[in-house]
């Protein structure tokens, strides 16, 4: 059901159990994956941090999960996503949803071209259990397995011990 996502989230774009001291480092590391893969200019990574400083931690969308991004004009070259899971969670200053364990990065050169993939992310957000599995994953492959599994498999999936 989440097959769309593996086009974007795969061994090249997922890093697990990353060590970060604070939210800014986490967002920079997520942005650097997009930069290293040629999906964004370095200015886009700066933008991802700039908007959190400007508007606050609104990119934290649910408990433990943040969706880091900037605007197309900040230097987005391709529709791309990436994800890091944190060894130790960081605080973004969100009133309800801190601390954050999973940071996803998003780039889209034109608005709304990434609707399908974001709709799939919506589906992940709805399933508390999926986020729990992502949080505990030791390797990118563990996370890709979840995206590729259908709902039946998912309900049988054991949550890995942290």
């Amino acid at each position, binding site marked *: 059901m989440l097959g769309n996502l593996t086009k974007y989230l795969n061994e090249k774009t997922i890093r697990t159990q990353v060590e970060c001291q604070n939210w800014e480092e986490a967002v920079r590391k997520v942005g650097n994956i997009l930069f290293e893969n040629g999906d964004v200019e370095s200015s886009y990574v700066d933008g991802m941090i700039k908007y959190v400083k400007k*508007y*606050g931690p*609104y990119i934290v969308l649910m408990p433990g999960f943040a969706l880091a*991004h900037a605007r197309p004009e900040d230097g987005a070259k391709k529709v791309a996503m990436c994800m890091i899971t944190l060894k130790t969670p960081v605080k973004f200053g969100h009133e309800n949803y801190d601390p954050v364990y999973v940071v996803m990065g*998003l780039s889209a050169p034109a608005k*709304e071209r990434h609707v399908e993939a974001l709709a799939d992310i919506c589906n992940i957000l*709805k399933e508390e259990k999926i986020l729990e599995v992502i949080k505990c994953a030791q390797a990118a492959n563990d996370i890709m397995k979840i995206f590729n599994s259908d709902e039946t498999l998912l309900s049988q999936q054991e949550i890995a011990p942290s």
Partner: protein
Amino acid sequence: MAWKKVNGACICGCGMGSSLLLKILLESILEEKKISSNIECVDSGSVPNDLTLVVTSSAFEKEMNDRFEGKIPVIAIKDFYGKGELESKLRDIGVID
């Protein structure tokens, strides 16, 4: 009476992350209720004028309330998990029955 048509904007800092999630939620609710809609995603700096409804993340609630001064309803959402919060707020202001 539910609204016949919604000319709305979903607003966040960049117009492509949380606002797009809000748009997906909003459109699916309106479609279910058979209300026609034209929903745009925009960043908080480029909000169009001819709107009948604004949906935003709670981080932008004050900015949008100041901007629209009660002329059109502004819905601020905290919960992006599912349709629950948005649906009940749409019902509160009469967009849906």
